[in-house]
């Protein structure tokens, strides 16, 4: 490849969805029709979004490669680029550098039971794989989705949750931290609810993403349930600039989250120096 790795492609925002008070989902289409038609990626890969004049930040592509009408990114408003992104409207143009990084091992997961455990914005990287599996439902055995947020208002993808809950071929469990009026699902922290559901570890992969504290206790719960380190998969996030393994921010020892990650098994993480 002789392309300039820092050159973004131009894209147009076609739709935005206000998910929570600080999370917005963007659906974007590459301006070059040919490129959009031929664009490929694997679930778990990330992209760098540019707001020109402000900067660039990294987000997972949370749409599924099985549905290529648009590329979807969910953005929490926390910093400079994300604050500016939140002000953008359909029709506005942004830059996209994608796909970057590695991906979920979709081939190795075939024929297995899958347990998704997502917390807060951590649902975004799980959504891409979850939707991919729904679209290839027969390739996977039992699928469980445990998705939690602080409160009902903090849940993302609310428009899709009714469908996910009503589907008979997946078990969807929603939980919030504290009781709330009108809430008909679970109440309790994700690791505790996970222990209640108690998925069987045999032939099962657990795929988890969420805030560091949730991950820490979810890993403990998974170990208690008997999951092997090799069968626990997570996806990391670090501050990134180049996205191609050079600029020196996202490395954990010799591994670059932007290049060798963001997807790692728990077994791989244990091999790395402890610098999360």
């Amino acid at each position: 490849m002789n392309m300039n790795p820092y050159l973004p492609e131009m894209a147009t925002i076609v739709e935005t969805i206000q998910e929570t008070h600080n999370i917005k989902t963007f659906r974007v289409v590459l301006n070059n029709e040919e490129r959009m038609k031929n664009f490929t990626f694997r679930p778990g890969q990330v992209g760098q979004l540019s707001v020109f004049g402000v900067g660039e930040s990294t987000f997972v592509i949370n749409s599924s490669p099985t549905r290529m009408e648009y590329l979807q990114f969910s953005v929490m408003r926390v910093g400079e680029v994300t604050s500016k992104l939140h002000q953008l409207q359909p029709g506005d143009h942004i830059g996209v550098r994608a796909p970057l990084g590695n991906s979920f091992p979709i081939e190795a997961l075939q024929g297995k039971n899958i347990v998704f455990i997502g917390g807060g914005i951590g649902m975004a990287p799980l959504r891409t794989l979850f939707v991919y599996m729904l679209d290839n439902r027969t390739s996977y055995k039992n699928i469980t989705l445990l998705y939690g947020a602080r409160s009902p208002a903090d849940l993302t993808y609310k428009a899709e949750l009714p469908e996910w809950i009503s589907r008979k071929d997946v078990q969807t469990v929603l939980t919030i931290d504290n009781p709330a009026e009108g809430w008909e699902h679970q109440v309790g922290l994700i690791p505790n609810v996970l222990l209640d559901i108690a998925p069987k570890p045999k032939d099962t992969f657990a795929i988890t993403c969420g805030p560091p504290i949730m991950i820490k206790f979810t890993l403990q719960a998974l170990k208690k349930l008997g999951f092997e380190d090799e069968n626990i998969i997570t996806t990391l996030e670090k501050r990134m600039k180049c996205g191609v393994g050079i600029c020196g921010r996202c490395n954990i020892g010799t591994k670059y989250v932007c290049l060798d990650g963001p997807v790692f098994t728990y077994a791989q993480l244990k091999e790395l120096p402890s610098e999360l």
Partner: protein
Amino acid sequence: MKYITKKNLLRLTEELSSVYRVLAPVAQGGTVTFRRFHPGMTLDMHSRMAAVSAKMATLPQTESLLLVQRVEENKKPELTETLPQGKTLVMGARPCDARGKLLLDPVFITEKIRDQHFIHRRENSIFITLACDQPETTCFCHSVGSGPADTAGSDILLTLVGEGYVAQAISDQGQEIVTHSFFEDAQDRGQQAQAKHGHALELMGQAHDYSSAPAKILERFDDMDFWEVQSAKCISCGACTYMCPTCYCFNITDNDLGLTSQRIRTWDNCMSHTFTLEASGHNPRPTKAHRLKNRVGHKFSYYPDLYGGIMACCGCGRCIKQCPTGVDIRQIVNAAQEYAQ
């Protein structure tokens, strides 16, 4: 082997500056730094090693990656790639500068990723290097696979003999330059240069063996007491990173000028708290001990693990000499190597 007098080297540099952007060591404010050379300036090749390395020849402090022109805010941005232009010649680099340049190659030029800006500068730069005859106390190039007359990365190696330099052409481009009429035959001065090389290496004393460093540093990774002791004097100023020929970490930011913006790449400093600070407030390298560990670890463990055992250090000692609090990377690596379990 060729020979050029000091006077003619200055004249040659003046001539070359009409074709190349010449960077040369010049005295400035009590120190020596590489500066853009223009006819009429004088070279300061010998008083001391330039404080800042010649890294800017292939990785400048600031460079433009993109120019973006919008018609209105967030509408129809037009992108122009701003690839570097022209050729650069470094006059009076030291062997450590030339070797440092080579160490960046496997990072910026890989099978998958080819950093076009870096490649352009790398392919369009010439290094005329001066062999060192008097090592400083901070020099340790011979411990990291180099030496005071190392030719790696140089196009011509100069060695001071009498009132001029013995010039050894290393590359084809170097060969072409030494055909200039300013150069004469070296005659027996070639042997004198050889003798000086041997003498300079002798003056450096026993080389240190870093081969156990990659594994030993990883063994120490979780021992934060060790890294806190090692970093106690550090004030996170980052002088070491800016002076270093092999520190390449960079930032990418947008310089906004209304409807025009420029995406620029600038040297960054891994010793700064904000380097890895995430928008959420989380920081994977929250203390100077974590950051110094990453800097030393990168040079003496991660890089050699990735690239065949070679240390990402050229032993120039600038980080030691320029550190305002006297942090010495050699002592840190030695301590990690010697540390008892």
